[in-house]
């Protein structure tokens, strides 16, 4: 489903919301039976319900999850599965993740929630040093594969320094964990179920701006979407755009505008950041010869840098133009300056044109 049908207010009123099937394989990897219109937090809620239903050893915990969570992602879980499986933790991120690792090490599915990705840093040591290396250093005797850490990330319009960060790049630098970011409700449900059932520790970042804003037809049954498989959500021939999460809707806007100028853009949703699907991106770049990466996190050292370096390494002779990165600026996420900081549609459009006309 085209993203712009999903996202309402964020884009603005200029775009008519016309139903249009994209050429992606999205509709074919999941059967559409019993699909219901719902938003991102409801889709995630459904995924959690299914996860706890199908695995009696699955637990959900974090700050304020019991009443439903500050974003309503955990509504109804405590009532349905009991306080022994869905419970609140005190305010201690390091403790929450460490505790989750231990729980997972005993063979359980520990689904930990960090209330905002900005607060994940006290748990950074636990994730990097404990979770990521557990299997490796114990010679496969132990692992914490059952651990999934969910955190809302990204700008929300007024979040300021500590409610808007995109810390995915820090975690992409750690072999041993997976980082997954969904772009829409349907994707989120399938990806989250895959993450929970994946035998590796996963950090799942949810774009908080889309919690209510993104509405999509989501099948009610239990389905999983494959990890480490990028998806081409819009076919094109002139330039490849790579992104993830909420940024994709911005990029799609730019693609549509660029189409008016005769530029055919191919848009890829990476979905899993590590380990990332190099083949799909590479195949696309071999087709178009140009690539643009966009993310909200600051440009220096962002995950776009890794994609750029890999593509240049593998497709150097095929490239017609330098790899473009349209990302957040190298400043702390600002308060009043948020509109300047964000990689907006116009910035992406400008970069598309500059790259194509190189």
């Amino acid at each position: 489903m085209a993203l712009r049908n999903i996202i309402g207010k964020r884009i603005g009123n200029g775009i008519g919301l016309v139903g249009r099937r994209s050429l992606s394989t999205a509709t074919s990897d999941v059967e559409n039976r019993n699909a219901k219109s719902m938003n991102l937090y409801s889709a995630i809620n459904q995924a959690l319900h299914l996860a706890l239903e199908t695995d009696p050893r699955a637990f959900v915990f974090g700050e304020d999850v019991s009443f439903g969570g500050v974003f309503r992602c955990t509504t109804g879980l405590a009532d349905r599965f009991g306080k022994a499986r869905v419970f609140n933790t005190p305010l201690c991120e390091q403790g929450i993740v460490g505790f989750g690792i231990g729980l997972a090490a005993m063979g359980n599915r520990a689904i930990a929630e960090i209330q905002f990705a900005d607060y994940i840093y006290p748990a950074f040591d636990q994730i990097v040093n404990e979770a990521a290396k557990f299997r490796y250093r114990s010679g496969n005797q132990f692992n914490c594969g059952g651990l999934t850490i969910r955190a809302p990330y990204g700008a929300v319009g007024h979040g300021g320094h500590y409610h808007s960060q995109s810390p995915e790049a820090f975690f992409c630098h750690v072999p041993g964990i997976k980082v997954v970011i969904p772009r829409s409700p349907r994707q989120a449900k399938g990806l989250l179920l895959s993450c929970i059932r994946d035998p590796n520790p996963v950090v799942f970042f949810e774009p908080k701006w889309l919690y209510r804003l993104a509405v999509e037809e989501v099948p009610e049954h239990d389905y999983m979407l494959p990890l480490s498989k990028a998806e081409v959500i819009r076919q094109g021939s002139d330039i490849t755009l790579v992104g993830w999460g909420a940024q994709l809707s911005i990029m799609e806007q730019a693609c549509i505008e660029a189409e008016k100028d005769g530029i055919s853009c191919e848009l890829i949703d990476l979905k899993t950041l590590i380990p990332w699907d190099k083949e799909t991106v590479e195949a696309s770049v071999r087709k178009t010869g140009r690539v643009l990466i966009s993310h909200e996190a600051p440009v220096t050292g962002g995950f776009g840098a890794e994609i750029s370096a890999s593509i240049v390494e593998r497709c150097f002779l095929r490239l017609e133009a330098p790899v473009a990165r349209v990302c957040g600026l190298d400043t702390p996420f600002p308060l009043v300056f948020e509109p300047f900081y964000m990689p907006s549609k116009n910035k992406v459009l400008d970069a598309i044109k500059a790259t194509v006309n190189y």
Partner: protein
Amino acid sequence: MALSYLRSSSSRSVNLLKPLSSSLPLRRPISTDTTPITVETSVPFTSHQCDAPSRSVETNPKELLTFFRDMALMRRMEIAADSLYKAKFIRGFCHLYDGQEAVAVGMEAAITKKDCIITAYRDHCTFIGRGGTLLEVFAELMGRQAGCSKGKGGSMHFYKKDSNFYGGHGIVGAQVPLGCGLAFAQKYSKDETVTFALYGDGAANQGQLFEALNISALWDLPAILVCENNHYGMGTAEWRAAKSPAYYKRGDYVPGLKVDGMDALAVKQACKFAKEHALKNGPIILEMDTYRYHGHSMSDPGSTYRTRDEISGVRQERDPIERIRKLILSHDLATEEELKDIEKEVRKEVDDTITQAKESPMPEPSKLFTNVYAKGLGVESFGADRKEVRATLP
């Protein structure tokens, strides 16, 4: 009417205020009388690993009236911030302190501006206590240039260097080890000052708090850790988050004191005691038993996890401003009319300041890049796609 009577009598021959030699004129509502008065705190102090200070607090009319005015100002300011937020002049996050004013005001009465205070994000009133102006508060809340952090910080990031107010921190608990660092610097420079590191009952369960306690105790730092226990960490009641909600005892080997945080005089006494203790014996924990009327932030109605009866009960029984009002009236330091006038004056001051703050402009776009690194260094990018970069490197 009594008011016009006061205004017109320049000789002040008729005295409505018995112990004072000067009456209370409208334009200068704070009395200058410093005759000592002794007042008992509402409840005795409970202590852990130390001797509790006496329940009798020395104060004077000037101080009491200052307390009243300051707390009325803080209360009015917070309520005005509530309206501004709903009118979308303030965006982002806004954590209001109304109900807890006694802690800010009582603390200031016991210390100097050379002592350091560091707190979390519920910092508007602490900033005022440290000498910040209303204009700086409202301008910063609205993200304008006249704000104390030049509009770049917002509600959670108020700072005032010249009165040693170290802010204003968003991440829960992160300010406590910072406070211990401040205390170390103070001890090193031997200037007989202390640091008050404030945190909430939610933050009391953060690991870094215990790291900070251990460090301060190990090195005898003049650090006073103040737990502003308003009994709810966002929506979580203290007994659901902490095995031991006796936060003043959590320091184990660090002494602690439990204080009625709604009684400004008790707060003053405790802080005075704590300062003396910290300078001689190292860290001490103060648990201020207080209450916030608003929810955690403006997006929290504050009534889903506690009953309205509870909130109104506290407002009736323990409101800090009412307590001081009763004290002033019972000691005949001012009349009800005069106190109401102070409140009216405060209200007008707040309204005028808001108008003024609204006129302050937003920060210049180029300020987006300033102060990322020390002055003059760093990167500035230009152009529609911000591709042109100018880097100033050392």
